[in-house]
């Protein structure tokens, strides 16, 4: 469960937070919660970040762990401790292969969690890391990944504060899995809430989509395709810092579109705010190599995972300032306004083409490319 629900103080309940409710006896919680998840077994799709994942989180995890279906699900939770709000999130990495052009599991594990905090309006301060290792893993492989983590943490300015290691029998895991949990400090001057999104707001994308997912696909060597392409894995915090500085009060919502791609993130937003997300196909940055691979394989770049991009919804009066700030920041030169929020089609993502056609783009269904992060 990567998406952590926003733990808010419910109104009219003596300021008792949902965290307090979590500490209530488990049986009362479980008894009260309706379990709507009815799938007989867990499939790969439940981990793909699309529709099935959402059903699992909302239908099983949330009612049992939070006691109710929570509000909109964000990338990190904000928790208030003695008057100080901190942001907390966690993410597991099971990518195959472990390393690929542009990055590796260690780097992903740091940047993924840093980014989940960043798009929640927080700067990552500290991470704890858990390794699940398969017996027989060469030490050299582990060392390379630990070094990659150390470097990524240093680059992102985040401390790795603690960790845990488990080893399972050979054949019971695929080399290594990494989980990182991060806490962050809220950045001043920005509030992320899908319910604050309004008609006329602009949808921004920080750069080309699909690089990560297609890179992984090609790195597996199952397709006889070669392309000069690298994963986009990076910390997006510097870009978000620049964005907040230039357009903080105008930022309504942000999300890093990892598994399930931009289409899934925007569908979640459309559902959470009840408005229509209208995208202009010719404005969406996609590299030719990614487009080519998607054409060949029948995939939609909007469904492909990213590791170093983010989407933002910004009020119209701040849109120019936001794009200018992103384009001037290092690594942000390809940022684009890719669409806008409209009243219709409510709860839906619609892509329009230059020649007047349009199509609905749904959340990812199933899992075209398992284990990409």
């Amino acid at each position: 469960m990567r998406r952590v629900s926003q733990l808010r103080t419910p109104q009219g309940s003596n300021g008792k937070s949902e965290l307090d409710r979590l500490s209530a006896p488990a049986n009362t919680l479980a008894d009260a919660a309706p379990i709507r998840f009815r799938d007989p077994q867990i499939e790969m799709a439940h981990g793909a970040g699309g529709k099935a994942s959402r059903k699992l989180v909302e239908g099983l995890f949330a009612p049992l762990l939070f006691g109710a279906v929570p509000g909109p699900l964000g990338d990190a939770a904000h928790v208030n401790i003695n008057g100080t709000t901190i942001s907390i999130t966690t993410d597991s990495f099971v990518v195959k292969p472990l390393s690929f052009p542009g990055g590796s599991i260690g780097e992903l594990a740091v940047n993924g969690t840093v980014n989940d905090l960043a798009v929640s309006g927080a700067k990552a301060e500290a991470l704890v890391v858990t390794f699940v290792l398969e017996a027989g893993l060469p030490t050299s492989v582990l060392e390379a990944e630990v070094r990659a983590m150390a470097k990524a943490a240093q680059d992102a300015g985040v401390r790795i504060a603690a960790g845990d290691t488990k080893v399972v029998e050979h054949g019971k895991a695929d080399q290594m899995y990494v989980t990182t949990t991060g806490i962050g400090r809220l950045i001043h001057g920005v509030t992320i809430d899908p319910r604050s999104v309004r008609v006329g707001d602009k949808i921004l994308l920080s750069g080309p989509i699909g690089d990560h997912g297609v890179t992984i696909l090609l790195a597996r060597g199952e397709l006889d395709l070669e392309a000069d392409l690298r994963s986009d894995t990076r910390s997006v915090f510097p870009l978000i810092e620049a964005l907040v500085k230039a357009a903080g009060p105008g930022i309504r919502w942000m999300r890093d579109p990892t598994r399930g791609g931009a289409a899934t993130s925007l569908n979640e937003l459309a559902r959470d705010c009840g408005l229509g997300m209208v995208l202009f196909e010719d404005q969406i940055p996609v590299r030719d190599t990614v487009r080519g691979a998607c054409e060949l394989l029948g995939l939609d770049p909007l469904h492909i995972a990213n590791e170093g991009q983010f989407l933002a919804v910004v009020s119209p009066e701040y849109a120019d300032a936001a794009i200018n700030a992103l384009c001037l920041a290092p690594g942000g030169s390809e940022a684009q306004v890719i669409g806008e929020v409209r009243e219709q089609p409510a709860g839906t993502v619609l892509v329009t083409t230059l020649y007047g056609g349009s199509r609905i783009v749904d959340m990812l269904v199933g899992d075209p490319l398992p284990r990409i992060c």
Partner: protein
Amino acid sequence: MRFVDEFRQPELISKTAEEIRRLAGTDRHYRMMEVCGGHTHAIYRFGLKDILPENIELIHGPGCPVCVLPMGRIDDGLAIAQEPDVIFAAFGDMMRVPGTQGSPLEHKARGMDVRIVYSPSDALKLARVNPDKHVMFFAIGFETTAPSTALTMMRARAEGIHNFSVFCNHVTIVPAIRAILDSPDMRLDAFIGPGHVSTVIGCRPYEWIAQNEHKPIVVSGFEPLDMLQSIVMLLRQLQAGEAKVENQYKRVVPWEGNRAALRAMAEVFQLRPYFEWRGLGFISQSALRINDKYAEFDAEQRFEVPGIRVTDPKAAQCGEVLKGVLKPHQCKLFGRECTPEHPIGALMVSTEGSCAAYHSYEHRKAAMVSLSSIA
């Protein structure tokens, strides 16, 4: 991107759409069937319905190989894969298609060794690197994919690979079109002919449609401009009272087809006397089986095949949708019991299936329009 962007140029598309509107006028209704699932997908993906006049109705045809496969064949294939040390290999399209006990992916989640391959030769590669296992390739497709299955078996024989077999579900397009035309509830004016199939079989096999049935057919490419141009060509024929086979997809489809591919098919396959199609029933000489020369690679001869026959759920109207009698959303189960997450029929699974395409790209738009017209 070359060979793609040229065929998506907005000015040309607008011009061609204008030409269609001019030719179609307003005084009559045109019913055109796109035979191929790839075309169905393109129509939805590019939103072509938005730019066509209302009096041109596109009817989705039977050209989605996953969709026309009866559920019993999936059960049969999965039954073989229950044997010890068998690897079930298939294209990604097949993975979520439901059998009575679940899809190949669900079997995989329960422990079956199921692999997605991108070509039959990848399945043969699996056999090479897993000499202690048997790799069964679940072959589907029209003449588009049959040659590569044939070549793979020829290569397996040449290399002396014995742990490889094919569960053959290859079907042929022309008998399916004939069955559609024989169906009394169909009133079609013209056909948008299949593009990929025709790269193999060429354009001649469609001549009887023009000659005997007096219906124009234009073999078409898959980009927006291809399809619009094909519609222009069909309208011109209809207005001139002509019925002939034309080739819009000349950059890919040779009139005489691909002789090398046809030779490979002839080497390995023979026609089955009859084969069951989902929704269309049994159609004679409409499918391929592996001939005796290649019997050792025929999973149906090598393994005990239960020969399961499953009737579709009563309420599901896959057959009517496949024949184009019903639109996807007119099926009783559409969007309720049958959704892309929980498909009942294969039409809801494959990206080429009209129900899946309609569900993901269209139906909420339709709902939206009807809502806004009320308000």
